[in-house]
């Protein structure tokens, strides 16, 4: 364990002996379709320490949702091919028994989707549905107990108690999303995942919900993953960011580093797609081209066909994720980080907290 590398300010990760709360190790997910296997997630390594907030960004179709769905084991079994390991608090998520998974879902890891509100039944009052959902995981709970808990959470997410007596169609999109966030917090999970949870909302509502999420993280000591295509959401709310493209991780690091001084050409392109709100107006360029066909990905770096900085080697060899220092110099490249002992795995890199990882030949990625 390279404990000396840890530059964390929070003491939470001490509890788990310095191990990340969530470790995704060499995870690949493919969807079987009539015309071939869609490689939606391709050899992803990612870890998240307790108390961190991680943003996963990338354009649509880059596999963000697939990645978080596999963390919850919510993918359709018959149509997906999943390899690799997901360790949550030492539990092997992909292989643990069904009952254990049912316990972990919602109680330890919960998720809020963009369309979560659609899952509420239109013909039942919010209160009836909240009660039902609560009872699924706490069958013995009394009505008063549930009401007290729910009202507390409603207060936390800025909802008036009156909402309980309304039907879903009487609520606005923002209010519904708040109900869903409150529901996801019912059992004080260790990890909450927001998959485009604020994407469909108005600026003001989104701003308010993001502020609430940040407050919750502080007050309830939540660990969160925010999945979005909008880097400004991540810039506002997260400590760390993972940039994903076509199923692979391009760059992972602290928000202040990755979004301010990006190293990976894809990250640079993505950031340059968002015009700044203030300051001088610079011409934004975006990234010409489109996502490759994930059924037949190009050899080498998956971003090479669109990369303005591509080298010759890029079309031949896939770059290896490498830990780099702040100035972009590669180092630590032959340090092997702690193996996932509990799963009996060897030689799997788990970068230390705060590490900046880049998968690009320009930054030592050709070191196989």
């Amino acid at each position: 364990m390279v404990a000396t590398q840890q530059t964390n300010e929070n003491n939470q990760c001490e509890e788990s002996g310095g191990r990340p709360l969530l470790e995704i190790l060499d995870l690949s997910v493919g969807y079987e379709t009539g015309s071939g296997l869609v490689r939606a997630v391709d050899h992803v390594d990612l870890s998240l320490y307790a108390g961190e907030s991680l943003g996963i960004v990338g354009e649509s179709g880059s596999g963000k949702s697939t990645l978080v769905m596999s963390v919850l084991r919510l993918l359709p079994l018959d149509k997906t091919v999943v390899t690799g390991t997901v360790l949550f608090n030492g539990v092997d998520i992909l292989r643990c028994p069904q009952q254990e998974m049912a316990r972990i879902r919602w109680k330890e890891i919960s998720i809020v989707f963009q369309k979560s509100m659609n899952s509420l039944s239109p013909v039942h009052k919010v209160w009836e549905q909240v009660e039902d959902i609560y009872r699924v995981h706490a069958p013995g709970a009394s009505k008063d107990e549930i009401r007290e808990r729910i009202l507390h959470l409603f207060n936390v997410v800025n909802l008036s108690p009156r909402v309980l007596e309304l039907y879903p169609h009487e609520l606005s999109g923002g209010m519904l999303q708040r109900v869903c966030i409150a529901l996801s917090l019912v059992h004080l999970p260790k990890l909450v995942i927001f998959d485009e949870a604020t994407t469909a909302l108005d600026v003001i509502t989104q701003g308010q919900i993001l502020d609430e999420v940040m407050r919750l993280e502080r007050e309830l000591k939540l660990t969160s993953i925010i999945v979005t295509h909008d880097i400004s959401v991540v810039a506002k709310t997260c400590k760390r960011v993972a940039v994903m493209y076509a199923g692979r991780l391009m760059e992972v690091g602290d928000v202040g580093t990755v979004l301010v001084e990006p190293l990976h050409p894809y990250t640079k392109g993505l950031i340059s797609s968002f015009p700044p709100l203030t300051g001088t107006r610079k011409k934004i360029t975006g990234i010409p081209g489109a996502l490759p066909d994930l059924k037949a990905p190009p050899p080498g770096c998956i971003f090479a066909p669109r990369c303005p900085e591509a080298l010759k080697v890029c079309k031949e060899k896939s770059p290896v994720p490498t830990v780099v220092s702040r100035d972009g110099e590669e180092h630590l490249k032959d340090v092997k980080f702690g193996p996932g002992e509990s799963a009996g795995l060897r030689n799997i890199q788990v970068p230390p907290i705060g590490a900046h990882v880049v998968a690009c030949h320009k930054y030592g990625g050709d070191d196989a």
Partner: protein
Amino acid sequence: MSGTGTSSRPTGHEEVLSAVEIQKWYPARRQILRLGHKDGGTFVKAVDGVNFSLRKGEILGVIGESGCGKSTMGKLLVGLEVPTGGKIYFQGQEATSLLKGDAKAFRRKAQIVFQNPFDTFDPRHNIASILSTPLKIHGIGSSDSERKEICCQALEQAGLRPAREYLFRFPHELSGGQLQRVSIVRAMLLKPLFLVADEPVSMLDVSVRADILNALLQLSEESSTAIVFISHDISVTRYISHRIAVMYLGRIVEIGDADEIISHPCHPYTRALISNFPSADPREAREGIQIQGEPPTPVNPGPGCYFAPRCFMTSEECLHSYPEEVDLGGGHLVWCHMVQR
């Protein structure tokens, strides 16, 4: 500014479009008996008295929350809805009577680019047919081959090269970004006076948005077409616009130079809107101004300031009368009791 009642109006130099007190009220419920239709019923006041004018080559951004009437205003401008009050003038010509008298002439002046590029074109028509149809309707080009030539040129100009690659493809064979480009090309083939772009990038992948925005910018520069750019994305709107209008419940509450509005917003609503908009630069993190409540629906709002129920600066006055226009100079107008001249 009030409706003059005549069908023409003196125009300022280079003014291509002006909207005077335009309104679109939808009856809130289907009225079975048309009794009291004049003033008794309830109305959804989607657009409720909007004034602005647009100069040649100018890009006006329109921002505001969902349901505040942006799209309805866009539809009024291109004649997809008929205003229930007020007048729109194209270079001094009254638009509604033009639409009634010579629909084709109207259509040539006002074009629109829609939000959803995947549904903008008939799936059964190929790009060649999609682009040559408006030319045929308006009698541009004397033969099919000449029209095809015009289409090719327009495609290439818009960066869809080589044009022949695209002409015989069907919409489902193009990406969202390419389709949106074709949509812009089609609108521009008619050399309109102005173009309404209703959230033209919100359904596109983030990485290709810049491309469409730059295409619109280039177009307004080259052909001096005025553009009304509707969006809920404030930074994108600032990027593309010369001026920005902020709408709330069917009315413009603040309008002015784009940078001025973003850096010195005066209306409480604009301030809340901008402060809650996250910046892509983590160093610019700031706390959003909290405002209470959800955006209400525009069913008979008023009589006071429409924003009063959610405003953090409300005073007694706000509840009784709708604020008058306050001119802050340099074309910066605000409608708020608490803003001093």
